[in-house]
């Protein structure tokens, strides 16, 4: 049992997170306050939601980079739709889910039909989705977003009054992140669709031979990525309460990095929801911790890069140990 625990990536990540929180918390006690934790969880909700989709694509055996463009398009489109036709927050989420899923499915169709690497197709559709957004909107900002987004973003659970008179509490956004994690876990672990994603990621030819519908599997994964990106787009506008048409794009590498640090293999077939959660949590804490320790935020990227390198070295070292343990010849005298 213990041996298994030490073979798992999540264990080390978990220890690293504990270590880091002690380090930050002893230097600045503000770190452990409810206000602070609720704050950084909220600001990483969007990345957290998108990370679940990225995990699915990595397990399938590829890397999607277009989901930030989808989130960006959805964010803009839903805000415009609500401005034109009205509606409540549920309608807004429904619209986001439909547009996001549709754009994701388009990715899936192209990838399956033309058998092109996922990263190439999604680089192309990233540019098309994001480019079309600029062509149509001419890059115009929307500062005065409909009230429903503001109201939704301002809902606080367990509201408290801070020392300086403001209120704080737990936003709904981290709960949507949590819901995405649970949904992702359920699909991967408890449904045949989830298992077929692992199967295709592990050995696609075998999956086809055994009768798994690889087309449906791929469509599902990319539809799901689009769906989550759509939800993430609405979550983002509810948090920042304005629409800047190029603010989500550019986050894709951070999301992918978080999922890879969480133990997902870039070669497909491997990855867990818990690891993905820890990966995003690590990034959120790092970003927050650097601010609390008054270290320039530029160090954030440097630190992330360093952690990725360390993670790669650690897993290479583990592989080497395993290879060494695998004795090829039992010498007999």
């Amino acid at each position, binding site marked *: 049992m213990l041996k298994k625990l030490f073979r798992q990536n999540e264990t080390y990540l978990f220890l690293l997170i504990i270590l880091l929180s002690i380090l930050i918390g002893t230097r600045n006690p503000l770190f452990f306050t409810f206000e602070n934790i609720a704050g950084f969880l909220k600001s990483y909700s969007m990345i957290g939601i998108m990370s679940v989709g990225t995990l699915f694509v990595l397990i399938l055996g590829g890397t999607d980079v277009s989901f930030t463009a989808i989130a960006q398009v959805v964010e803009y489109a839903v805000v415009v739709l609500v401005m034109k036709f009205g509606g409540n927050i549920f309608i807004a989420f429904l619209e986001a889910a439909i547009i996001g899923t549709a754009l994701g499915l388009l990715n899936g169709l192209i990838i399956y039909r033309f058998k092109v690497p996922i990263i190439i197709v999604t680089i192309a559709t990233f540019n098309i989705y994001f480019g079309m957004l600029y062509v149509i909107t001419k890059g115009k900002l929307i500062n005065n977003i409909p009230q429903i987004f503001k109201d939704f973003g301002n809902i606080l659970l367990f509201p408290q009054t801070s020392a300086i008179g403001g209120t704080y509490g737990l936003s709904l956004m981290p709960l949507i992140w949590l819901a995405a994690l649970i949904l992702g876990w359920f699909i991967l*672990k*408890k*449904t*045949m*669709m*989830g*298992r077929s994603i*692992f*199967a295709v*990621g*592990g*050995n696609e*030819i*075998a*999956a086809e*031979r*055994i*009768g*798994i519908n690889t087309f449906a599997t791929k469509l599902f994964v990319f539809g799901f990525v689009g769906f989550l990106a759509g939800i993430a787009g609405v979550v983002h506008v509810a948090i920042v309460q304005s629409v800047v048409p190029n603010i989500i794009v550019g986050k894709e590498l951070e999301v992918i990095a978080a999922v890879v640090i969480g133990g997902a293999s870039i070669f497909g*077939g*491997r990855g867990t929801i818990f690891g993905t959660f820890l990966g995003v949590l690590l990034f959120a804490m790092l970003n927050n911790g650097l601010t609390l320790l008054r270290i320039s935020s530029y160090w954030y990227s440097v630190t992330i890069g360093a952690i990725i390198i360390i993670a790669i070295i650690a897993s290479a070292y583990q592989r080497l140990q395993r290879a060494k343990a695998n*004795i*090829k*010849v*039992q*010498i*007999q*005298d």
Partner: protein
Amino acid sequence: MQELLKLSGIYKSFEGVRALKGVNITINKGEIHGLVGENGSGKSTLIKIISGFIQPDSGKIFFDGKEVSRLAAGETTSWGVQVIYQDLSLFPNLTVAENIAYNEMLEKRTAFTDWKEIERIARNAMAKIKIDIDLHRLTEELPIGTQQLVAICRALTSDIRLLILDEPTASLTKKDINNLLSVMKDLQSKGIAILFVSHKLNEIFDVAENITILRDGMSVGTFPSKSLTNDSLVELMTGKALNQTRMARQTNSSKVILEVRHFSKKNNFKDISFSLKAGEILGIIGLIGSGRTELACAIYGIAPPDSGELFIHGRPVKIRNVRDAVKEGIAYVPENRLVEGLIQKQSVMDNLNAAIIKSLSHGGYVPYQRRLDHASQWIDRLNIKVAHPLVAVQTLSGGNQQKVVLGKCLSTKPSVLILDSPTVGIDIMAKASIHEMIRNLAAQGIAVILISDEIPEITHNCDRILLMHAGKIRAELDASTIQASDLERMMAQY
């Protein structure tokens, strides 16, 4: 005997090339049926037709006495036909339980997974062949022989009536092969028919009652295995009588080229000493896990030994890496030429030139004509069958690919050539021509180390034989006096 599956007059073309030209085969209920033929004889195409992956252009198919218009992929499974491909088609990242139960779970068409049911299915399947593998291990962590059993268990989850095994023993150790053959007989006793495809004729003779022979897309016929001998089977497969007798060779040279003294490496081999003369073919025979490949890697500098000395032309040399070995005139053809020896997607020309590209260049620039000339010269010398030097290596047959690897090595003008299992997975005629080539090289004065676990390959080609087992040399034998049967008996001791 009742007929289970009968195919008659099967024709199939791919893009105008006839792969099958009138094939007949009848598999009886509960028999083990051998299917043999050289590479390209149409075995794979026939299996794909039986498994329903491709449709024949014409011909009749009867299953259980009833004529069926066509075999479709899902349909044959529902009749109880299962194929285990050479690559096993397992999911390395999933557990043993899930790999075994996947078919069955898929057939239930449920949306949700039932982990208890998965384990139950896996346990039942393992009970059928009386094996016990940890259900929660990842398949990739298992040795290849165990993975083979997992693949068989997966086939046993459904009501199976015909199991097709495509080259199941190609990468197994002797022990695993014996284990597999007894599992096959066990399944047969349960009334399951098995179509067994193998290059290793002795295995076919061991278990099959009837043998169907394919040659050039046509069936030569089906024979009771008792009516055939090894030689007559080979003749039916190749259409030629093959002279498999020992080649009388003369090595008069007394010039020792390579000498290994007390080579040891932890978990690889221990206290290995031998010498090698110019023009000599030294056979190293041993199974997977005997340390034979590890020893070759040590001499060639891939994984240098912990201790020991190496002499070349009587001069002590230190080989720390492959470059050192090449400089000393050692060449090595690895066991897995597909992975280690060739760049599959590149041309025959580039592969042939890869080892000596520096010497072809003028200050960094390599003129096309020189590359072409050098490659063409080796294609001629080794009689490599290729339409043009620019054709990608992956399109060549196994035997021709092996010749490309050899050409690449020989172009460095080595004085020592180490060949690790050079004819694995190669058909009989190509094998014979590679053996001839090896003997010619030795006749030109190259010292050859031939590593193999095939007894005839060793006894027919070598001058001297080292028997390796569990990391040590157990015997040194004179090939001119030893009989294949004696060598077999000696190996069986370990």
